[in-house]
């Protein structure tokens, strides 16, 4: 299968001393030889202005191919008429977005290497060493293409209006090129934070651009929301302004907050260090671990938390990358989980967070995984879905789990969850046979639930507190194109959204009635 993913990265001033804004393009191409004999070259990385690292020869791949397929009628590989799968383009914006993106690539490569062992063997014969020592390091470090001295200064307006217009053409060009190389572009993943300037402003500007330029391609946004104790003072402004864009131009948003990620890490540390488990925890299985292929990569701060998000993205796309008995493509996520176009915010939770070293997982352990997915400890955003109304829920299972296990657990958990009256069985399920590295199975739950409402309400509160005093407003208003109306529109957009959730919540306590059906005259 072909997974080709490219990233477009825009950085803002690093807190770690690098005072430049850089824009660079990176790409990663991994290929499973099983499907496509013509495309036998796997380029390890395409970086910036067309530097590519080709693998030695199609000959290598042909030999591998011959070793690993059953020749059948003896005339060589059976013709695989179907070509590669869909591609996604990852757009990483801002410091936060970039750091998460880094972790994502690392883990993705590790996952595919584990599945396609033969590919890795081939790569080790020459290319991998070259990569490790050589220029691929640059993929994860900065490589300048477009630079700008000042950053966005934590100002949404700068990111959105100034950098947006400045770099629109260049970015568009790169995006078009990426898209052309894709056989079938299915979706864009945008990773950014809401509280800063670049990620928030330029990131959301890109959303509009993507919608205009590629209207048929889905836009999935992973947004890091600011916690209450965020150190950026203007984060409420930035978040609210960004929310308006998300409301209007994103197909699906996965809100995540740092506090939840932090809590998950604390929990893991507790388990690891408490020693009461006795058996060792497999190191690679930690959802926070970053032992990817590239061991030389320096571990940066926030890495543990970023890895959790990276794992989220991996699991999200697993069913479209690997085979399973009940596949789910990314467009199915949007189709099933978004009943009304505005309500596209999904609460995500991941299990398991670690695996114990014993190999045989009895069914009870499996059921525990399902229960965990609905516990607040495993959510990536602070919310309380159990006491709110579910509009829809998706369960994406990986590993050796069968349909009967899935159904048994749904039956078990259903009574404690409240679903909206017209979608009482609002479950979407998928089974992928390939588990993540280090685990025998895993579960990602995505819920469209009214419990995101408090998060938004709180955000609005913080915004209004600042806005009433007009604090820091001049930084925004002095940017060309920004007016007070931008702020008021953004707030009303958010209020409308909250209102929609309110309406749904109001139906929560009403009894479920079947509406009168059509009466057909015979």
């Amino acid at each position, binding site marked *: *299968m072909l997974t080709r993913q490219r990233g477009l990265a825009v950085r803002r001033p690093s807190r770690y001393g690098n005072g430049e804004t850089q824009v660079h393009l990176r790409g990663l191409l991994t290929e499973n030889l099983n*499907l496509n004999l013509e495309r036998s070259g796997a380029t390890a990385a395409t970086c910036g202005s067309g530097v590519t690292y080709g693998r030695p020869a199609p000959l290598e791949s042909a030999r591998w191919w011959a070793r690993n397929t*059953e020749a*059948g*009628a003896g005339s060589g590989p*059976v*013709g*695989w*008429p*179907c*070509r*590669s*799968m*869909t591609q996604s383009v990852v757009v990483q914006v801002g410091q936060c977005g970039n750091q998460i993106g880094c972790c994502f690539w690392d883990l993705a490569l590790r996952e595919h290497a584990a599945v396609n062992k033969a590919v890795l063997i081939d790569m080790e014969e020459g290319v991998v060493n070259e990569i490790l020592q050589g220029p691929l390091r640059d993929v994860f470090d900065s490589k300048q293409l477009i630079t700008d001295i000042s950053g966005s200064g934590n100002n949404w307006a700068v990111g959105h209006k100034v950098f947006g217009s400045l770099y629109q053409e260049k970015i568009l060009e790169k995006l078009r090129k990426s898209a052309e190389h894709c*056989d*079938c572009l*299915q979706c864009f993943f945008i990773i950014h934070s809401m509280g800063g300037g670049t990620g928030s402003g330029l990131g959301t500007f890109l959303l509009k651009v993507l919608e205009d330029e590629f209207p048929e391609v889905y836009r999935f946004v992973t947004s890091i929301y600011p916690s209450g104790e965020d150190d950026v003072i203007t984060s409420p402004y930035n978040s609210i302004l960004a929310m308006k864009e998300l409301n209007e131009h994103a197909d699906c948003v996965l809100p995540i907050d740092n506090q939840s990620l932090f809590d998950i890490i604390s929990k893991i540390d507790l388990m690891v260090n408490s020693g009461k488990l006795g058996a060792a925890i497999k190191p690679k299985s930690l959802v926070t671990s970053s032992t990817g292929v590239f061991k030389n990569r320096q571990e940066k701060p926030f890495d543990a938390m970023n890895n959790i998000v990276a794992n989220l993205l991996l699991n999200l796309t697993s069913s*479209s990358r690997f*085979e399973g*008995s*009940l*596949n789910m*493509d990314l*467009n*199915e996520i*949007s*189709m*099933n*989980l*978004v*009943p*009304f*176009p505005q309500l596209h915010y999904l609460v995500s939770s991941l299990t398991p967070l670690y695996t114990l070293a014993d190999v045989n997982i009895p069914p009870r352990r499996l059921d525990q995984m399902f229960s965990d997915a609905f516990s607040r400890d495993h959510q990536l955003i602070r919310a309380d879905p159990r006491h709110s109304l579910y509009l*829809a829920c998706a369960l994406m299972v990986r590993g050796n789990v*069968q*349909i*009967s*296990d899935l*159904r048994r657990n*749904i*039956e078990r958990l*259903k009574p404690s969850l409240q679903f909206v*009256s*017209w*979608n*009482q*069985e*609002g*479950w*979407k*399920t998928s*089974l992928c046979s390939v588990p993540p590295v280090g685990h025998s199975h895993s579960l990602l739950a995505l819920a469209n639930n009214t419990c995101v409402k408090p998060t938004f309400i709180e955000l609005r509160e913080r915004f209004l507190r600042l806005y009433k005093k007009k604090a820091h407003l001049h930084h925004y208003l002095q940017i060309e194109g920004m007016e007070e109306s931008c702020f008021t529109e953004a707030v009303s957009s958010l209020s409308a959204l909250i209102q929609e959730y309110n309406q749904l919540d109001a139906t929560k306590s009403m009894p479920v009635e*079947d*509406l009168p*059906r*059509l*009466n*057909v005259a*015979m």
Partner: protein
Amino acid sequence: MSIVTVQLGQCGNQIGFEVFDALFNDSHCSRGLCSKRENEAYQASCKERFFSEEENGVPVARAVLVDMEPKVINQTLSKAACSGRWKYGQHSCFCQKQGSGNNWAYGYSVHGPRHEESIMNLIRKEVEKCESLSGFFIIMSMAGGTGSGLGAFVTQNLQDQYSSALKMNQIIWPYGTGEVIVQNYNSILTLSHLYRSSDALLVHENDAVHKICVKLMNIKQVSFCDINQVLAHQLGSVFQPTYSGEGLFHYRRNPLGDLMENLVPHPEFKMLGVRNIPQMSENSLAYSTFTWAGLLKHLRQMLISNAKMEEGIDWQVRPPLSGLPPLGKMSVNKETHFNTSIANLVILRGKDVQSADVGAFKDPALYTSWLEPVHAFSVWKTQRAFRKYEKSAALVSNSQSLVKPLDMIVGKAWNMFASRAYLHQYTKFGIEEEDFLDSFTLLEQ
């Protein structure tokens, strides 16, 4: 005469593979319990129907595989090729890269017209390989996007292009508690379209087959593979050759035509269900013996009490006393739960099949009043045993058993529709609210 199978979507393709596998394994099964000549005639008939010959002797399934994303088709092709005994044609499949996203509208309005020509070409090629065409067997699910939407489109096309050939659609009824959230929408849209363009709809419910796996086959962790295999077994027992009127060694030439003739007397009623007996795991098989009388009795009760398997049959249900006409329009709230049939077909396979007595099925109380039992009931036989069962019986019936599930699905879809949920996903691709309303109207009838 041959049947061309069209496998659509993940479900269709996964099932299709199991069906061909079952058919092939059965026809080459060594425990046919009949004479060699008999066996050869059986094999030849089966082969003619479902497989065509290739140069090196490996049978090639007469099938066209269609899916909008490549993973499942590749899996299916490789499984068949790896078995070494039969395979799919190398060029008989069509796929795209991006699926239909569980969206009926996308499958029907976008993928359909876009790929109409390629798909119909593939089908035509397969048809040309047949000496004479009995009809089409289309396998699809109702809940997803490709199987349901594209399936409806293809069936309509087949109706236009091959109006003289018969079409039977094998549709999979989804689990009640959701595999896909919008499955109710997809199902009603599919059913309403298929009812207009298909000749018969053979329905299998995931819930029912799942129960069979759990109770009868004793499978602890039921997987889709298990479910598909049970399904394939049921289908195989229906489609494998049986005697025509001429007696021994002569097998029916036109399976689809005969099925339709017997079971679909009126175009308004074309939903069929299959019941099979006995059905058990291979381990238990070695220890069981059967009599025809016992099997048939169970089968009859399964029919009238609307049970799908031989365990847990409600023996209390009895047909209404003859003389009292059954009510004109059976409402689902009727207490007796008696399942009236329009037509039934019993297929018997195995030892001493001539001695089996199917008189109980000719009871007019089982049937509606507007059809004579002699027209409503028929039986097919063959001495050749099916798979490893010494005796087995299958019942294909056109009865009320599907009214209740249909009612449930329409109810749920209607509720969702009333709150306008998910509609924007469909209108995006051209299915408007009126189309929904049309579907509801048709199904309420």
